């Protein structure tokens, strides 16, 4: 029987916006083990950046706290849990609406959850007011064989 490829990592850092780049680059380096395309990697980085920004700006409202990322690789899928122990989200449905933001004065666009949803395959929000928020999102990385097939089809189409 063939072994299923599995891996796991945990990352914790304080809620400073200068750690956003650190977080997304680290997750990308972890995800690289699944051999994603540049585009898939860029999708993951963007989704992580949105989630971490939310923890810092909304969860902790720029006060100090800990942002935690747990990453799993399972076969060809990456599953990420990004959480804070900040103030929580009062109305999740409202927060998910495109362009809805509670902080328009900070030039926030209100597109965070929309981007996470469309750049990843799945995205779930669990939140308790006063206790914090956890985002779980996953994305399947296409195996290389399929990608090569696609490239081949593109070449033969021309």
């Amino acid at each position, binding site marked *: 029987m063939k072994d299923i490829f599995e891996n796991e990592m945990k990352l914790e850092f304080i809620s400073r*916006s*200068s750690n*956003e*780049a650190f977080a*997304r680059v680290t997750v990308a380096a972890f995800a690289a083990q699944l051999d994603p395309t540049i*585009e898939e990697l*860029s999708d993951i*980085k*963007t989704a992580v*950046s*949105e989630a971490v*920004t939310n923890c*810092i*700006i909304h969860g902790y409202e720029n006060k100090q706290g800990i942002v935690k990322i747990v990453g799993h690789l399972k076969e060809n899928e990456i599953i990420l849990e990004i959480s804070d122990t900040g103030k929580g989200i009062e109305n999740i449905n409202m927060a998910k609406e*495109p*362009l809805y933001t509670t902080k328009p004065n*900070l*030039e*926030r*666009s209100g*597109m*965070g959850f*929309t*981007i996470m949803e*469309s750049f990843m395959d799945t995205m779930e929000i669990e939140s308790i007011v006063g206790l914090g928020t956890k985002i779980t999102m996953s994305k399947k990385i296409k195996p290389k064989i399929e990608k090569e097939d696609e490239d081949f089809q593109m070449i033969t189409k021309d």
Partner: protein
Amino acid sequence: MESKFYEEDKLLVFKITDEIDDCSVQKIRRKADYEMERYMPKKVVFDFGCVTFMDSAGIGMLIGRYKFANMIGAKLEVSNLTQSVKRIFEMSGILKLIPVTQDLQVS
């Protein structure tokens, strides 16, 4: 971010060279607003050709600069959108408001 002002055309060009996220937009915002006020251009162009990463902070930053440009009577445009930058701007509908400059010649 680099900037250049073309006196004869009253054109102010910002070439963004950092990754755009919540952290870096604060710097971009400060510099852009300061220079717009200083030169009072008729047209402002943001060049995204060197941007390797952008998240939704870029949308908020651009909407803010659009408002600022309007306030000082300048037109705002964007140029050299990379595939990933374009995708994020398109999701927000912001490109219905802000035109994309074709063939920006920057020396």
